[in-house]
C-alpha cells in the first residue's frame, strides 16, 4: 500500500512542472524523428524492398521512442540521499529500501509513459511507423517493454547502491550510458552487428531493455516467449544482485550531515 502511495507521489511530483513535461515530450519526438530521418536516407539509398524498409523504420522509431523511458534519475537520488544523510529518513520508513527504490522509479516511469503515448500516435501519423502486424505482437511488445524497464530499473538501483562505497557515481553512470547506447540496440539494430560485437551484446543485459521490445513490435514472425524468459532471467539476476548489495551496504552506512 505504502509503495503505491510513494509511486503516485513521485508521479505527481514529475507532473507538477508542466512546462518541463511538455518539453520532455517534444524532445522524445525529436529524438525519434532524427533517427527516422537518418535511417530513411540509408534505406532509400540501399534500395531495400518496401516491407524490409518499413520493418527497419518501425524498429528504429520504436527503439528511439522507448529510449526516453530509460533515463531515470534513481542513481542521482540514491547518491544525493547518501551525501546529504537523508537516507536515514528512508531507512526509518517501514518499507524495504530496494523495494522503495523500485516503486520510486516506477513512479518516474509512469509520467514518462504518459509522455510517449501522444508521441507514439504522432509518429504513426507523420512517419513511416506502422502498427504491429497483429494484436498479439502489440501485447507481446508492451509486456516486453515493461519487463525491459524493470531490467533497467534494477540495474540502475544496483549501480546506485554502489554509492554506499564510492559516494560518487558520475563515472559509473556515464560508463553505463555509454555501453547502453551501443549494446541496447537503440542506435543501430543488433542484426547489423559483426559477430564479436554481437556476442558481447548477447551476454549483456542491455539487449533486454530496448532491442527486445522494439524487435518484437516490428517483426513479422510469430512472437515467441523466449525473449520474455530472457528478460525474466535478467530481472531475477539483478534483483539478487540488488538484495545482496543492500545487505552489505547496511553495514557500510555512514550518515553524513544532519
Amino acid at each position: 500500500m505504502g509503495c503505491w502511495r510513494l509511486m503516485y507521489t513521485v508521479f505527481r511530483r514529475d507532473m507538477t512542472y508542466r512546462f518541463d513535461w511538455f518539453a520532455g515530450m517534444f524532445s522524445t519526438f525529436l529524438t525519434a524523428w532524427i533517427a527516422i530521418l537518418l535511417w530513411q536516407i540509408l534505406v532509400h539509398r540501399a534500395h531495400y524492398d518496401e516491407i524490409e524498409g518499413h520493418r527497419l523504420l518501425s524498429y528504429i522509431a520504436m527503439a528511439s521512442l522507448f529510449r526516453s523511458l530509460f533515463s531515470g534519475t534513481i542513481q542521482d537520488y540514491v547518491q544525493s540521499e547518501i551525501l546529504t544523510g537523508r537516507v536515514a529518513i528512508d531507512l526509518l520508513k517501514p518499507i524495504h529500501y530496494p523495494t522503495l527504490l523500485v516503486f520510486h522509479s516506477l513512479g518516474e516511469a509512469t509520467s514518462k509513459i504518459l509522455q510517449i503515448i501522444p508521441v507514439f500516435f504522432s509518429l504513426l501519423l507523420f512517419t513511416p511507423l506502422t502498427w504491429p502486424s497483429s494484436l498479439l505482437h502489440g501485447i507481446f511488445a508492451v509486456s516486453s517493454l515493461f519487463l525491459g524497464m524493470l531490467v533497467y530499473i534494477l540495474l540502475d538501483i544496483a549501480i546506485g547502491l554502489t554509492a554506499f562505497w564510492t559516494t560518487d557515481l558520475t563515472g559509473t553512470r556515464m560508463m553505463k550510458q555509454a555501453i547502453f547506447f551501443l549494446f541496447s540496440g537503440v542506435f543501430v539494430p543488433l542484426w547489423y552487428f559483426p559477430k564479436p560485437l554481437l556476442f558481447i551484446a548477447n551476454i549483456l543485459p542491455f539487449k533486454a531493455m530496448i532491442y527486445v521490445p522494439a524487435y518484437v513490435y516490428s517483426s513479422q514472425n510469430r512472437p515467441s516467449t523466449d525473449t520474455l524468459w530472457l528478460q525474466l532471467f535478467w530481472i531475477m539476476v539483478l534483483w539478487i544482485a540488488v538484495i545482496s548489495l543492500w545487505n552489505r551496504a547496511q553495514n557500510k552506512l555512514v550518515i553524513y550531515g544532519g
Partner: protein
Amino acid sequence: MKRWFSIYLQLTRANIKRRGQYRGSIILSILALAILESSILFGFFIIIRHFQDINGWNFYQISFLVGLNHFAQGLSMIFMAHSRGFGRLVSLGQIDRWLIRPIPPFISFLGHDFALPCFGDLVSGSVILTYSLAKLGVVLSLKNVSFLIATILGGALIQSAFFVIASATSFYTEKSSNFTSLLVWNTKEFINYPISIFPSYIQIVLTFIIPFAFINFYPAHYFFKTQDILFHPVFIYLTPLIGIIAMGFAILFWQRSLQKYQGSGNS
C-alpha cells in the same frame, strides 16, 4: 574586471579541490567518455560497413564530425556542466545567496563548478580528430592547426551560449532539465550526422536559429571537400564570430532573466 577574474579563479581552485576528492570517479568518467565516443563511432562503423556511406560521407569524415563535436562540447562542459542541474539549484533557493554577494551573479554561476571529468572529452576528442585527419590525408600544418583551434574555441562558445540560455529559463520555470536537454542535447544529436541529410527547414534552424552546424559541419569543409556545402562557402570560416555573438546574446538573456527571478525554496 580583474578582481572578478581572480575571484573566479579562486572559486575554480576550490572546485578542483572538491572534485579532486573523487579521484576514482574522475578516472572512470574519463574512461566512460572514451567508451561513449567509441560507442558512437562503432555505431557509425557498423552502419557504414553495411550501407557504404552516409550521403556521400565516409567513415573518417563522419568521425571527424563526431570528434569536433565532442571536443567542443567537452571544452564547454568543463565550465558549464552544472547548467544541467541548474533548475534544481533554483528551485531549492540556493542561488539566492549569489544575489547578496558583492560580485555579479553570473560570475558565481560560472564558478559554481569545474567539471574535471569532462577533460575526458578532450582526450578522446583529440585522438579521434588526429586519427581521422591523418586517414583523410590532411597535413597538420600551422595554418590547419590554428584554424582547427579557432573553430574549436568558437564551437565551445556556441555550445556554452546554449547552456547559459537553457539555464536562464530556470528563472522562469524553476525546473528546466527537460528543456535543457531539448535545447542542447536533442538538437546536438543532429550534428553527429552531416546536416545535409536533413530536410531544408532543419538545415535552416541549425544554421540561423540554433547555429550548431557551425560547430562541426561547416568548418569540416575546410579540411575535405564534399559536394554538399550548404548556403554559402563563407560559412566555413564563421564559427568563432558566431560563437562570440551567441555568447554575448546568452549573457544578456541570462541577466534579463535574473531580473525576473522572484525567489523560491525554503532552505
